[in-house]
């Protein structure tokens, strides 16, 4: 049961998300070898290492500041588009935070602002075989639950489910963005590594609040 969310809870979520990525790095590498150049797994590990470092350094920070430093740290990794995209997600989330203890609606506003910032960097939408295929449904679920009184643990569990379904659906899609785009029809049959990473992150978020 989680009624409100602050620095402590989000720090635990970030650490769990990082663990999930590290455990699955080989899966991400294999997926990226099929449609990209194979470095997504390595880039994601660097991104989550940068995220965990920001958490360690920011245990006394308010949530807004913590999210901003996570975003900046993630952007500092030299990981192609992964750094700017994930970094802008967290920096956007920081911009969407008001106050120290967030309720359902404020959590929804935070993720919505993160998505909006990321959409400034990428024009991809659902169906384009990118991170957005996992992120957009997850944020939709969080927003839909914002009006209710359900606890944040349950909402994050549902968001993780939506992100996972979204990532799995990318297998059947033809890539429209990034390097995989050049594969055309040959991209069908392989899951998108970026969407898969987002699903691991949300799975980590949910597990931390269980």
């Amino acid at each position, binding site marked *: 049961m989680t009624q409100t969310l602050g620095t402590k809870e989000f720090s635990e979520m970030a650490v769990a998300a990082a663990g999930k990525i590290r455990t699955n790095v080989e899966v991400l590498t294999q997926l990226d070898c099929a449609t*990209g150049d194979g*470095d997504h797994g390595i880039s994601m590990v660097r991104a989550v290492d940068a995220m965990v470092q920001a958490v360690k350094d920011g245990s006394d920070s308010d949530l807004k500041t913590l999210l901003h430093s996570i975003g900046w740290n993630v*952007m500092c990794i*030299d990981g192609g*588009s992964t750094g700017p995209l994930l970094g802008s997600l967290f920096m956007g989330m920081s911009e969407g935070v008001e106050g120290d203890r967030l309720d359902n609606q404020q959590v929804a506003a935070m993720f919505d602002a993160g998505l909006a910032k990321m959409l400034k960097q990428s024009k991809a939408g659902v169906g384009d075989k990118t991170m957005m295929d996992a992120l957009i449904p997850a944020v939709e679920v969080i927003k839909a639950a914002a009006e209710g009184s359900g606890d944040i643990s349950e909402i994050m569990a549902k968001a993780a489910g939506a992100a996972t379904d979204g990532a799995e659906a990318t297998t059947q899609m033809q890539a429209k*963005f990034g*390097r995989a785009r*050049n*594969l055309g029809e040959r991209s069908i049959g392989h899951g998108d590594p970026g969407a898969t990473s987002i699903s691991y992150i949300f799975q980590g978020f949910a597990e931390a609040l269980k």
Partner: protein
Amino acid sequence: MAMKKFINDPNDLTAELLEGYCSAYKNKVKLESGKLVVRATPKSQDKVAIVTLGGAGHEPALSGFVGEGMLDISVVGDIFAAPGPPKVLEALKMANRPAGILFVVLNHAGDVMSANMAMEMAEKEGINVKMILTHEDIAPGADAPVEDRRGLVGCVPLYKVAGAAAEAGKSLDEVYEIAKKFNDNMATLAVALKPATHPSNGEEIFELADDEMEIGMGQHGEAGTGRSPMKTADETAEIMVTQLAQAVKAKSGDKVLVWLNGAGATTLMELFIVYRRVEQVLAEKGIEVARADIDEYLTVQEMGGFQMFVAKMDDELLGYWDATCDTPYMTVR
């Protein structure tokens, strides 16, 4: 994973290659702040600076062309991966000067994203910088939208032309216009025979059957448009140069610059054989090869194949092409 490469810890590839490169050519370049390759002797502040960014693993590109007459700063990412926006911003701040900065960006998703975010931050800081995007790949068609056309080896000759204009004391607007003219008149097509191994993880970055080749493949193994059974040097040369000449609208009486850039495993022997036919085909069309160069400038590890580059040249561009430069991997005296 077993990988036949002379490396140490895969996590240290970029740091170690930059250390080695900057030590070997310390009279020309030095390393600042971990990932910025800068000139050993800076260009004077009253001249436009040329800055670029891109992943490592393509040596000698991009940092091999830092030096007099070409680049001022190359912002290096990791293997095949763009540097993050904060690092790019740091480079733009370092290069900042009243004369301004020309920022050359290759069209790849990560590079463009980092560059755009860094440009946004630089504008807030009042840095005088203009960005130019190279996108000369014609694999998706010469008229395809810009976002589909990747930046390939053409960035290197563009550094040369823009760098020479900057050394000549041209203003930022003038350097930009000269670079733009070159950019608008160049085209590249790549052909792949054999995959490269990603040096961080030992994985082959694409698959190609033993008897196949692929025209249009990008420099990270991104798929192209024309997979076919292996062809001869002459057949390959004819297909590629015909498309390239058409793309730059070269006609009888025009002068062109031709580059053949080996991807890593293709020999100079093969490239000379291909070039021989390239010049013949152009001559049949009445197009004069004003300058040519055949070398490895932008490699993809041990990938087999090459990039063919053609640019339509006028006297102004040829003048900048022939101007002196002194960098570790390109020198004109």
